[in-house]
């Protein structure tokens, strides 16, 4: 409901003795009268971003904190040097993923049945603790990296910011749950990792590079690992931890894939550049192993073989195969199917022939 | 003389010779190496001469270090994020100022007649040392700030990068010359200054134009006026030379700032209010005036100037008058520069505390 001009005029004149009011902002008529209605999932972003608010501009030189749809103030200070093209940071499933993230939060304190953890044989406990140490480190980087990129995301593309903020929360929970598991059963933190692969993620100088390496390659591999973790878990608590973490990780992977697709479609000239990011990241996996370190690989083998290391190594190979194939599949979805031929010789042997 | 054929032949054989591509010798744009050569002019071979007739693009989507006019490759990883518009960082005089800076470098070790410094009365020596301590700090910030911005300046507007690189060099020399002066005559560094908050506002800038307006136009403008005053109140030839040379360097920085502001005002007129807002901030809430009710710089600074300008602690009155004259000059010159940059309305919008020093406009 707009305020009547008479009322405004009255306010302006009558109150002038107290302090002159401007009130011109009450007459902003850019999108007055738009009413968002909650849908089946409540009042979600998809329901709210309608009318002019839903138009995500292709380009925007908004260097302020002005939210999309707000009226610009000429004197507003520039606060950053943000990306100016939507394609640079956007994906089409952002709103959905963000709402999903908000709905599916969980608590490592109360949602994990910690009481189901029983004492394990020493080598099994040590192996689980090594895996948890590694995963805690992984989550450190996964949490820090999106934070770095926040100031570079244009305020007009707030969906990206929201999604990244939800990811930071997710990663905080992950690092805390793995630390809890490491300390919950008489074990503790074990050996640190070489971290070259992790550093590759935080070194990215471009948002798409970061997303390609973190979301698709890094988190993709971790997501597979979580699913295998569920399989090799020794008790209900561990099963639940890996299940919940894998679910969170899937959202991050989904953003990465859809963002890459967005880039491949909207900025086709960048294909070669994207391949280089993968060339480099894959070559680091060669030296460090998919699980980040030999120690961790051995730990997984121990866990997967229930103490039988030979059997465990087979499972590790199966995990690798799964990781590489799922990785390739995701790249295909994003439109980078030619990666199959260019993949690092170290990963390629794990690749199944393409489905016809 | 030549490398001995034996040595070379030991290294490789003809079979090792790689397949050469050589496509780059014939750029697809059909550009031929022409006989049009650029010859040095009166000032040598300057950037203006080699860039004559070449276009500087208004916008540039460049995420790599590709220099302007070089052919791009499609597989280059992005190296950083740069300002995309010429207006964001450009100044019409940057080539000129850069060349000038290269020509007019000096050495604080050998270009200052240090031997002319004679022992001074304690109060004067201490005042000079306090002023030098303050100036050293000021130059610290002025050297750090441009560095922050370099990775954000688009290589397509390399002139601005070059200019900022000379400024970093200039500021290094300034901080070192003031440190040298402080230690050269039995004094030394005295108290840390109180200008921290004001200096930090320069580092806090989030936009290049904001930084330039605050640092080049506002702060360095004030410092330049101060250097000229320093020359006036110097006790010997060494100090006179120091202040003269520093003021000369500072004038270049100012010149860049004023012309950058002008370029923004002319090419992005919608940013006028934003620009005023930056100046509002430094003149107002961020300046110590408002925060503490003290002067535009700091009491220590003021007192040092008072003593130097008065010729000792017995002549406080004269010193105060001269300090006020300095301040007045600073404010009037600041306003004059904004006039040149195309922001004459600043006269009416200037923070009242500064405005008190403003002379009426010349007609």
């Amino acid at each position, binding site marked *: 409901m707009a305020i009547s001009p008479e009322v405004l005029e009255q306010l302006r004149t009558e109150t002038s003795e107290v302090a002159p009011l401007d009130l011109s902002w009450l007459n902003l008529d850019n999108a007055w009268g738009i009413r968002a209605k909650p849908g089946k999932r409540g009042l979600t972003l998809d329901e709210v971003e309608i009318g002019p608010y839903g138009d995500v501009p292709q380009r925007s030189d908004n260097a302020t904190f002005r939210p999309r749809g707000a009226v610009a103030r000429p004197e507003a200070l520039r606060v950053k040097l943000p990306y100016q093209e939507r394609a640079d940071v956007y994906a089409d499933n952002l709103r959905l993923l963000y709402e999903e993230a908000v709905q599916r939060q969980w608590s490592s304190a109360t949602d994990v049945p910690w009481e189901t953890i029983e004492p394990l044989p020493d080598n099994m406990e040590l192996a689980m603790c090594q895996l948890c140490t590694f995963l805690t480190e992984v989550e450190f980087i996964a949490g820090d990296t999106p934070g770095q990129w926040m100031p570079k995301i244009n305020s007009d593309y707030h969906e990206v910011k929201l999604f990244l903020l939800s990811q930071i929360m997710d990663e905080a929970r992950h690092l805390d749950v793995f630390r809890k598991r490491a300390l919950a059963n008489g074990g503790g933190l074990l050996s640190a990792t070489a971290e070259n692969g992790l550093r590759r993620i935080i070194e990215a100088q471009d948002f798409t590079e970061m997303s390609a390496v973190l979301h698709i390659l890094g988190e993709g591999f971790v997501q597979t690992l979580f699913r295998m973790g569920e399989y090799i878990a020794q008790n209900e608590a561990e099963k639940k931890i890996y299940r919940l973490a894998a679910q969170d990780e899937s959202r991050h992977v989904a953003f990465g894939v859809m963002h890459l697709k967005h880039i491949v479609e909207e900025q086709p000239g960048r294909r070669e550049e994207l391949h280089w990011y993968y060339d480099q990241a894959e070559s680091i996996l060669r030296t460090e192993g998919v699980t980040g370190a030999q120690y961790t690989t051995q730990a997984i083998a121990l866990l997967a073989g229930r103490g039988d290391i030979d059997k465990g190594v087979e499972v590790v190979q199966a995990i690798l195969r799964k990781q590489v194939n799922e990785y390739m599949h995701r790249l295909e979805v994003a439109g980078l199917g030619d990666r199959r031929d260019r993949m690092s010789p170290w990963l390629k042997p794990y690749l199944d022939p393409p489905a016809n | 003389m030549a490398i001995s054929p034996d040595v070379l032949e030991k290294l490789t054989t003809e079979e090792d010779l790689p397949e050469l591509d050589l496509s*780059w010798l014939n750029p697809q744009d059909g*550009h*031929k190496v022409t006989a049009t050569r650029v010859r040095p002019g009166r000032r040598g071979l300057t950037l203006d001469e080699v860039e004559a007739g070449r276009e500087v693009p208004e916008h540039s989507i460049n995420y790599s270090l590709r220099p302007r006019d070089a052919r791009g490759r499609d597989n280059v990883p992005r190296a950083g994020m740069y300002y995309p518009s010429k207006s964001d960082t450009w100044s019409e005089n940057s080539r000129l100022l850069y060349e000038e800076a290269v020509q007019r470098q000096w050495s604080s070790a050998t270009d200052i007649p240090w031997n002319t410094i004679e022992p001074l009365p304690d109060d004067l020596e201490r005042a000079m040392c306090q002023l030098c301590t303050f100036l*050293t700090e000021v130059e610290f910030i002025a050297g750090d700030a441009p560095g922050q911005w370099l990775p954000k300046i688009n290589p397509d507007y390399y002139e601005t990068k070059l200019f900022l690189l000379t400024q970093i060099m200039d500021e290094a020399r300034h901080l070192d010359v003031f440190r040298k002066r402080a230690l050269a005559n*039995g004094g030394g560094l005295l108290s840390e200054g109180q200008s921290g908050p004001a200096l930090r506002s320069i580092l806090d800038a989030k936009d290049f134009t904001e930084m330039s307006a605050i640092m080049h136009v506002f702060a360095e403008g004030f410092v330049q006026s101060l250097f000229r005053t320093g020359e006036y109140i110097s006790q010997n030839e060494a100090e006179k030379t120091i202040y003269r040379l520093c003021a000369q360097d500072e004038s270049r920085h100012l010149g860049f700032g004023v012309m950058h502001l002008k370029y923004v005002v002319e090419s992005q007129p919608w940013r006028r209010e934003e620009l005023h807002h930056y100046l509002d901030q430094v003149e107002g809430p961020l300046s110590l005036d408002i925060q503490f009710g003290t002067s535009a710089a700091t009491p220590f600074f003021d007192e040092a100037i008072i003593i130097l300008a008065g010729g000792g602690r017995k002549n406080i009155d004269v010193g*105060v008058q001269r300090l006020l004259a300095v301040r007045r000059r600073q404010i009037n010159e600041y306003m004059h520069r904004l006039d040149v940059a195309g922001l004459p309305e600043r006269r009416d919008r200037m923070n009242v505390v500064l405005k008190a020093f403003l002379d009426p406009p010349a007609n």
Partner: protein
Amino acid sequence: MAQEPQTQGPDIPEDLVKIAQDNNIPLDLVRRALALGFPAEAVKQQLAMPGVTAEAAEQFISQQEAMRAGGEVVIPDDLAEAAKKHDWPDELVKRGLRLGATAEMLISQMDAGLRPDQAERFITQQERLRGAAQPGAARSAEAGEQALDLSWMKVPTEWGIRVRPGKKGLTVGALNVGTYGDIPDYWPYQTEMPRGAYPIPGVPAMGYTIYEKAELWSDNAADLYEEAIQRRWRPATDIPWESIEPLPDEIERAMCQLCTFFCEKALLAGDTVGKWLPEMSYGYHEVKLYLATAEFDAARHFEVFRKRALCNGGGMGIQSPGYFHRAIIDARAWTETSAVLHILSNSFLMGLYQLGEYVAHSEAESNIFRLCIQDTARQLAFGLGHLKYFLIRKHDRREEVHTYFNKAEAVMVYDDENDNVLREALIILLGGGLIKEQILDGYRKLEYFKRRWVRDYLARLESAGLPERRERLHYSLKKYAEEPVAAQAA
């Protein structure tokens, strides 16, 4: 030269006499103004203002004299009226007048919107400065001095140290005497305070991140700084540009390609060091000073190679693949940055500059490359000095240093493999043309020079205390680490 009879009071400077005469102001008035303590500058400015009359000046000075003598301040009618309109209390107006403000000035400030509370702050400050807080109090010089704080005069820093210029003038290194020579291993101040000054409370942190000497120090920094300044050069005028003659197309293009490569390297060095400068605390200003000269080097290198590329009909070539750039941009610690940029990257740049000098076609080119060799050698010296300092103090981080080199060498090799354009340009320059024999000759020379680059790189690392790098060198570079004789034997 005053024509009026001398009355009591200070002498009037000649130029002031002239201004007074030009404006028909009696010299006696000027003398009275000077006697009141107004500096000649201020009087000059006042007299030069438009519309100044002898009557107004007389009125103003009489009032000031009356005030100094303890007399009451009278507010002129127009000022009183304006004060009423703008709610300025009389007492405040009087304080303003007592400070020497004219009625016109006060009225114009009132009209400009100076609020009484703002004016009061300003006036209080001025009063404090003048030591005139007590209205009408007769002031002695001591009273004026008491009005100042002067605590800065009493801080307990070194006093009595005189640094004298030596053979190289007054150098930064020479300043490190007495306590100024104590360069602590950890710098505790987050502010702009210069080393050796006395800290005061309340100064905000400036956001530096490097406070440990081992993370940035090099013993040669102060000397390199002065050396860089003494050995500075000017591309516009120090290069005999007119010696550059038209070259065959392929030579010109190859040279331009090399220039394009150097331009990128210069941009990279400038950006990278620029990014790190604000991270380094000021306890170690010698390092920052030196790096400022390296920044200036970067500017000159970009400039001189762009000029060379554009001055002879060629122009810019093709950009480089940029992979190796990233190894430098991505570095996340200064020691890593310096090791990769100053030692690895610059060793190879040095090799290219030497090669450029070797193939120079003119005095101009020969000079350009020689001057760049000097600048780059300083950067190498800094990098080696820092690495040495770091390794001695951080035994546990030796492996980490190797990790940085492992990565950077690998990316450099990858970049090199992908940059066929630069390789071909070098082959053409070394061979002198496109004929098959020339290409073969160029190729062989390039292989020859690569050995030298690798040899020098390893010799440098050895001098910095990393001799085992020879064994750990990237496998693609290792083949160049063998001496030609050994290669022949193999």
